[in-house]
């Protein structure tokens, strides 16, 4: 099979899975959760908790304040951060939907590369997605000085982690889709 034809098969496989309402729902819910974590919870966790804990603000007010924090994707992030956050949210959603499909169908031919890709992709993607400005938020939270200094020295000031995450989650999704596209326990020609 030619490469372009193989790519078409992979894309059709992904499209075919995402057309099923259950997997589309998994994709959308996961993407929404990742987006919420990246845009609202990580940068504004203390504001969210203070708002929820406030006796001064009624329930409608709490919802309004927290909902308004989604606007931070425009004000609290650089252009490249926005691209990384939106792309990774979508890709992680697709990845989790594909993984759920693979698990539900009990595919036995999950390659080690797919497993490794999922691990590396999800971790680096979720690390990279956290920081609106420099890509170092999660790392700097855990390793306050060394990691931030290291990331600040990179050409894109740490955004490389998010870009690596996109590549790895994308690759992981590709491998999962390839697993689905090829019937289990068969021999490739």
């Amino acid at each position: 099979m030619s490469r372009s034809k193989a790519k078409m098969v992979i894309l059709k496989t992904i499209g075919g899975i995402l057309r099923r309402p259950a997997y589309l729902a998994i994709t959308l819910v996961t993407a929404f959760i990742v987006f919420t974590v990246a845009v609202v919870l990580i940068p504004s966790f203390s504001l969210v908790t203070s708002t929820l804990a406030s006796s001064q603000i009624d329930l409608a007010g709490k919802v309004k304040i927290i909902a308004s924090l989604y606007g931070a994707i425009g004000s609290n992030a650089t252009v490249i951060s926005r691209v990384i956050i939106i792309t990774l949210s979508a890709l992680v959603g697709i990845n989790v939907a594909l993984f759920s499909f693979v698990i539900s169908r009990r595919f036995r031919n999950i390659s080690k590369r797919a497993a490794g890709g999922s691990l590396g992709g999800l971790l680096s993607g979720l690390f990279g997605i956290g920081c609106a400005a420099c890509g170092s938020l999660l790392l700097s939270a855990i390793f306050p000085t060394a990691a931030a200094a290291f990331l600040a020295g990179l050409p894109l000031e740490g955004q490389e982690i998010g870009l690596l995450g996109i590549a790895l989650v994308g690759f992981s999704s590709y491998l999962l889709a390839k697993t689905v596209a090829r019937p289990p326990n068969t021999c490739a020609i």
Partner: protein
Amino acid sequence: MVVCVYMKNTNQDTRSTYIIAGAIVLAGLLVAGSIVFGGNNTNESENTNDQPAREAAAERQEPSQELDAIRPVTEGDFIRGDVDAPIKIVEYADFECPFCKRFHNTMNQLRTEYDGDEVAWVFRHFPLTSLHPQNAVPAHRAAECAAKLGGGDKAFWQFADSYFEKTPSNDRVDLSVVLPEIQRELGLDEAAFQSCVESDQFDDQIQADFQNARETGGQGTPWSILIGPDGEKFPINGAQPLGAVRALIENVSQ
């Protein structure tokens, strides 16, 4: 040629499946852990080697307790609005931070919606020298000098507006060009302004603001604290959108 690639034994397949499942769970735990431990991170994170700052981070308290460490707002602060306004937004900012520049515009927009006796805006220094080693401190010194030589709050805010408007942030401006421009705009004495900026007479004040920002939980800029009518405090991390700050103001003032 036919090559059997995917004929694997069941144990290996099951192990791979568990690895992926474990990866997802681990990633989730990492995110949750990072949120819990990194709750107050904002846009431009500070990685200072400053000893007190590291101690402050190590001795991190509950957010509400940290916010209570805020130095009371007094006439001595740079305030746009009434010192007795029921709502005060105390902003700790760095003149070289791009998100502070953005948030400065947001705050100026809010000023068109709320009178100074409803919402007061307080500016405090939070220069991140680790990120902006060249310009951060001189810019904050210059703001203080503008206030000293220009007659107080009004000159300070004119300086702040002009500096944020004229400079691209992140140490990408030549201060020897832009500061004289602002000095002329404000009608300040050139020699006195230059001598003031070169001196360290305001460094203690700038450091005190920096320290207070850290004590209140600030780990990056802009770091702001909204103080409601009954004294309740809300942390505003980073350059939050106008809608979010407006929603907060409207709901705490009810």
